[in-house]
């Protein structure tokens, strides 16, 4: 995080260059960019302190790099993308990836467990014009990433927090501990313990404020593995309660299927 230009706080702000922010899209559904647009009320105040220089989802107007901060959505799935991400990196002082696609390969990384050629021939009439990579990979596999913001989609409050922290030269408050802490701080009764839900909260990184448990659903793991995730203990426990391996494979093979800890866990239960 580079500190903001101090003087932009006072009246000379207009004359001083505001930090430039760019938003980039790779293979993704655009949901994370929508989280930024969803900041409706907060978006205008943000533009007081930051110049949104490139954000195709919001506006066709764009100004040239270099950019002080780039938000990258989406994973790398084509040879062209694999080139383009280097261009983005070259133009960005700080590069931040947002969402499960950019940080873990996304749902499209389900292809990584199979042969992509078979999918192509099943889906397209003519495979000749399809240029795709064998695997969907996170941005950090290709270029250096300064900060990763998790989620499918990201939580808009966390996004604001990270932009805010960047502007003020402070550490963002985005803990890597379990969803369970958020559950308990909100007094949500545990779905796993009271109803036997297959909740991934104990191995998933916080950040959603326990969204699914607050609607009486187990956590789907869309923020990816937490710090020191003990996925094998949770699987062993569920196995002992009679949960079958193929169900465990499905559980861990969601939006973050290709995140290291979840990938290893699903592979361990695949016959």
């Amino acid at each position: 995080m580079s500190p903001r230009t101090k003087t932009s706080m006072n009246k000379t702000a207009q004359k001083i260059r505001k930090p430039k922010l760019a938003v980039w899209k790779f293979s993704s559904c655009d949901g994370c960019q929508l989280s930024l647009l969803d900041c409706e009320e907060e978006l205008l105040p943000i533009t007081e302190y930051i110049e949104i220089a490139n954000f195709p989802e919001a506006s066709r107007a764009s100004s040239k790099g270099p950019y002080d901060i780039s938000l990258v959505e989406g994973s790398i799935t084509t040879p062209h993308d694999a080139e383009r991400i280097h261009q983005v990196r070259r133009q960005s002082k700080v590069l931040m990836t947002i969402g499960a696609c950019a940080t873990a390969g996304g749902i499209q990384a389900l292809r990584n467990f199979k042969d992509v050629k078979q999918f192509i021939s099943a889906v397209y009439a003519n495979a000749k014009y399809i240029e795709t990579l064998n695997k969907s990979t996170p941005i950090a596999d290709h270029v250096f990433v300064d900060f990763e913001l998790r989620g499918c989609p990201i939580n808009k409050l966390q996004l604001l927090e990270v932009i805010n922290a960047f502007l003020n030269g402070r550490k963002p408050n985005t803990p890597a501990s379990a969803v369970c802490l958020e559950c308990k701080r909100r007094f949500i009764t545990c779905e796993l313990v009271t109803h036997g839900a297959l909740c991934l909260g104990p191995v998933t990184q916080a950040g959603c404020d326990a969204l699914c448990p607050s609607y009486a659903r187990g956590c789907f793991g869309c923020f990816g593995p937490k710090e020191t995730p003990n996925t094998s203990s949770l699987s062993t426990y569920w196995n002992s309660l009679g949960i079958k391996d193929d169900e465990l494979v499905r559980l861990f093979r969601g939006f973050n299927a290709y995140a290291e800890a979840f990938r290893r866990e699903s592979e361990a239960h695949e016959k």
Partner: protein
Amino acid sequence: MVGIHLKTLIFERSELDHLVETLKRRDYKVIGPLLRGGAIVYDEITNTSSLPIGWTDERSNGKYRLKNRDDAVVFDWTVGPQSWKRFLFPPIQKIFATHKRPKGIDLPNTKKQPVQETVPAKYAFLGVRPCDLHAIAVQDKVFLGGPYRDPVYERKRSGNFIIAVNCRQAGGTCFCASMGTGPKATSGFDIALTEVLEGKRHYFIVEVGTELGGEVLKSLKCLKATDENLAALKEICEKTTQQMGRSLDTTNLKSILYQNSEHPRWESTASRCLTCANCTMVCPTCFCATIEDVTDLSGKQAERMRKWDSCFTLDFSYIHGGSVRASTKARYRQWVTHKLASWVDQFGTLGCVGCGRCITWCPVGIDITEEVRTIRENQS
């Protein structure tokens, strides 16, 4: 068996409504048990109709289920996922706000005026179990016992009216009898109730713990307890003691844990532990918090927030260069040895009251009593 009390009375079940009424008239915010999300939790109540009448809880390792009973007993359950600490030590609390001046920052003068000026709610807690009375006493030591008193806790704790309820049955993960904290309340309450259902007769035996307790009871129709009532009280408490789902031998415990810091059991439990922190969040005595500073976009306003934290997170022991307790083994050992050993050095009492919440709400059912037993019986 009958503890220290000024006098013992009885009142009929219907008087419970009047008790809540009386407390409300005295400007208390009455907090009591109610059903929510498949568990018995605590929140504000306005009358007795929301109490979990006819419900009970079944608790085992990593499992909690509500069960309907065929009677109208009000307090035949033990403890749920929440404890009274949620009101006295809130999970998210603003400590102060500050703003930037041309030179320096404004800080609230905490000596002149309290951090938050709003008149605090005066809590009346209805249905505090004996183990939880002890948990409150433990947190009193933590937050108010030393030279630095916690102003938030102090404000929330002051003027509490505590209605304890003795346990008619123990839960599957309870071990208060081992810890000397239950199943009968002996101190720390204004009044303590024991619920009795004898055929058609449904009444409460009332022990008065403070003058204020006696005062409040004056608005209720009470009778002096008879020898038979006292015998019923004794019998209920003895029966509950026999029912304890768990036990924990505390003899020499502190030195056993200190001497076995490299016991192989720590490592094998670490392979099961998810470091999810549920055990510490539900524990009524755990008091750890982290501080988060937040700013507005301009950087002119800032707030300091205090949030529940746990020795199971990596951030908890992070100092320059890394986390001190990087391994799960180190984190699990910290939790158990803090509760049962170093707490004694720190506060002169054990940090565990035997409520069993950590066992019930651990997603993989890790059981502190079983861990301690294994280490005690196989000392290295």
